[in-house]
């Protein structure tokens, strides 16, 4: 990979290529157009007649101008994409036929107002289009059964995030609304690179539902999620460490820990929860042992010797020494 200096030069060069000619020439930059919203006359002239009960987006924006403008800057407003609301019935694709609402001078009971709808009714509307890939497993998922709807987390008209139209600026801020204990753990000394910006909640989880436990998005079981990045631990190995093979979270807390390597307890105490046999596994490693600098409490403790703790491919590896 390039050094800092050459990488910066390359990037500057690309920047020069893509800076629009208008900016260099001095003309004021134009607002990006994401699918033109036709005027009333254009719609009347160019578009086919609206079905009964529909009034068209141009009628909606005569009162809801700010919502129209905000939508035009999002994917929902991209008329060029045939799957978007704006390519279909416009505002009424989601909010339903608007004629009754218009005729009743804006009576909100005559149209779908999402914040006032039951959660599952909101979701039914969104799922008429969002049916693929990461949304497939929404029905029956943990969030759905807790009566969350799409607008619990997303905002169609006034998103705050850079991607995914979230109601908060960042994912972690949003998820912390309900999952505060997990978010607090990110501040611990042993943590995944979430607060450094290299990972976020959806690096591991799919909040829309998944085939895995705990809404993990990769694989079909907890371990498959972990080994999607930590593949060296996949094995399988000749000698397995059973609690690890059954579940990584037996020993590790993936959200964060005050203990080394995201362990749920400090060594040797964690190992001594399962290893009670004679001699050194069952020894009390107290202050006296510490003073004698017993290697079984100082430093990496048990894994200083039992280093291949996730499993070993060595024929002498039954105790994970080799």
């Amino acid at each position, binding site marked *: *990979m390039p050094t800092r*200096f*050459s*990488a910066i*030069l390359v990037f*500057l060069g690309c*920047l020069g290529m*893509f800076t*629009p000619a208008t900016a260099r020439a001095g003309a004021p*930059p134009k607002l990006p157009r994401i699918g033109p919203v036709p005027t009333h006359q254009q719609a009347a002239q160019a578009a086919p007649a609206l079905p009964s009960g529909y009034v068209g987006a141009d009628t909606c924006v005569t009162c809801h101008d700010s919502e129209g403008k905000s939508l035009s*800057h999002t994917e929902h407003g*991209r008329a060029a994409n045939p799957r978007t609301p704006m390519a279909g019935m416009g505002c009424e694709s989601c909010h339903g036929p608007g004629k009754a609402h218009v005729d009743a001078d804006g009576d909100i009971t005559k149209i779908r107002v999402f914040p006032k709808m039951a959660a*599952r009714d909101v979701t039914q509307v969104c799922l008429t289009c969002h*049916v693929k890939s990461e949304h*497939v497993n929404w*029905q*029956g998922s943990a969030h759905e*059964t*807790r*009566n969350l709807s799409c607008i619990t987390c997303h905002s169609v008209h006034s998103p705050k995030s850079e991607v995914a139209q979230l109601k908060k600026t960042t994912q972690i801020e949003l998820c912390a609304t309900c999952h505060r*204990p997990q978010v607090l753990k990110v*501040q*611990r*000394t042993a943590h995944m*690179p979430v607060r*450094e910006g*290299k990972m976020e909640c959806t690096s591991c989880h799919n909040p829309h539902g998944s*085939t895995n436990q705990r809404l993990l998005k990769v694989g*079909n079981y907890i371990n498959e999620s972990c080994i999607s990045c930590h593949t*060296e631990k996949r*094995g*399988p190995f000749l000698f*397995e460490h059973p609690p690890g*093979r*059954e*579940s990584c979270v*037996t020993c590790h807390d993936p959200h964060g820990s*005050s203990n080394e390597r995201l362990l749920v307890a400090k060594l040797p*105490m964690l190992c001594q*929860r399962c290893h*009670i*046999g004679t001699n050194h596994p069952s020894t*009390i490693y*107290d*202050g006296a042992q*510490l003073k004698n600098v017993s*290697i079984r409490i100082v*430093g*990496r403790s048990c894994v*200083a*010797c039992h280093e*291949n703790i996730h499993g*070993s*491919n*060595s024929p*002498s590896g*039954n*105790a994970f*020494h*080799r």
Partner: protein
Amino acid sequence: MSRPYCAVLTLTALMLLPAIAAAQPAIEPLRTSTGTVDFGVRLTSITGDEARNQRYRDLRNGPTIDRARYNRDEGAWVLNAGADHAGYRDQRYFAEYVRAGKLKVNVLWDQIPQFNSAVTLTPFTNPSPGVFRIDDALQRGVEAGTLKLSDVAATATQFDLRSKRSIGLVDLVYTAAPHLDLTLNVKSTQRKGEQQWGIGFGFSNQFEVPTPLDHRTTDVGSALEWANSRGLLRVGYDGSFFNNNVDQLVVDNPLRFTDTTSATSQGRMALWPSSHSNMVNSAGSIKFAGRSQATGYVSVGTWSQNEPVIPFTINPAISPIPLARPTAEVEARVTAMNYVVSSHPWNEVSLSARFKRYDFDNRTPHFAVTNYVRTDQSVVTSLLGGTEPLGYVRDNFDADASFTPRAVPYTAFRVGYAREEIDRTHRYVEVTRENTIRAAVDLAGNQYVSLRAGFEHSERTGTGLDEQVLDEINEQASLRQFDISNRNRNRVSTILQVTPIQQLGLSATIATGSDHRPDAAFGLQHLDNRTYAFGFDYVPREGTSMGLTYGYEDYKSKQMSRQASPGIQFTDPTRNWFTNGADRVNNVNGNADLLTLIPKIELRFGYDFSRSRARYDYVLTQDTTLAAVTQLPAVLNELHHGAMDARYLLRKDVSIGLVYWYDRYKVEDFALDATALPKIDVNTGSILLGNPYLPYTFHTVSLRLNYLW
């Protein structure tokens, strides 16, 4: 500042000058722009541990290009591209091209550094990957008694303990027909560098080396998906190929130069074997009457590795032991299924049921081991006669019913039942079954109050307990390993949000959990946790907001053991002892955004504080025959992070900014801090890498110029 950096800054200014000079200096409100980039310079002052605060990032001094975003929107297609931390170890580049309704391509290059220590020391030399040597004269001297291990340690040289994960990803979705998508993704992850690694040559002799990391994982996925508003059908393939270029570790024993049948001059360890996984999957869903949907998913495939098996020992003085076979021949057939049926037959009622099976069928042939070589020094009889290819079948069933009464709008009451059954091989509890009942109330949609509360009670029991297995491996027969022991669990959580006025939000989270293992005479018996968090958010007007949250976490554990040598002590209850673990954490998070308080100036402040204090206290029985214990000191970790971000709008498309980060970490760890590891030869028989947990203070200042176009 070095010459290259000056040249970069000059070049930057020259490139931007025409654009800035030519733009009209009109007074207009900010408009959406199609690009943004921060040019800047960063200075970091470090006291203490250079590595920990840069564990996953690069805060070195120098020029910066950051938060660059480019958007080009032509209606029918859109290109988004961006770069963060360009030129630094944590740099990231991405691009996305979307042709509306036809094609979507994502490309990513991401580097995640891992900086473990800047004070690491090792006397080992590294003549080839995975081989670590000590000077022969030193080995001879220590063996002869003319030298000590401290003489070996004195030859150590310092180095940075680092590694880096480099990820390249291409993700493509092609819409072949209105409802038909073809997806393809390829991800290559390379990990290079070094990792702290231990090797033992006896009960009191441990040595650490910086074991090399040089492996690559290539993941390939493809799928064909047809979906419309009524249903979906998907078939796919996922392959994962892990290749490790250094699969063995050979390390000199600093204590010995000659080999005997009870002592070795070097040790050899198997590192992670190269492996691969191939899975095919199929999924389908269909909607039917009563607002119902059924979804099914099946995945089948194999995980395998067939690496050459290294000999039992590298010690030539020990007679070679024949291998059961030359290669590992490890294979597990993995089958996963997931079926969900959900229905919303009436407005007030919602039902769902899910069945999930995960079958890890380990088909590895038994690798017979009669005798093996412990730490390359002694031939030992195997207690179990060889490998135990662990496998399991995990079945989960969940059912939930939710009721939303008309009389209480926006409120849902939920009851649910879950059952997990795991049937496993090669563990002393063959089958565990866990039944869970749960209830929850969710009140949302009210502009003043939102409440989510839930309760869960689980009981896990095991069958097929074979205490003889424990006896064979010299464990107490009444030990219950906590991941398969009988267990009663209760969990309660409550989240309350109150918005008395539109500008003010108050929140409270309370979560408690309790695990009790009634049959665990030895092992983990209790595990309790409590979390409380209280906070507020205040947004008096657009562009001004502030918030503060306080959180408290409390974790307690109790486990029992018996300190015993083989023989009569093994059954002597006066030798029992308990460990009471307690971990308390206080967190404070605050933020304030003042974006419109002062014209043309945007101010952002943030503060995070986390302090954890853990104790492991030993308790002896009243009739104890053990010596009195000396309690361990508490383990303390304290982290402060403060941030200030100020931006002054020179004009609508140009701003200058100042960012200041303050990070301070304090640690007291009886096993891992500088008092525990003052030198690499921590005792007369061990040499470690000398990378203790150290406190640090970082002051990071960034000046930046932000340009929008």
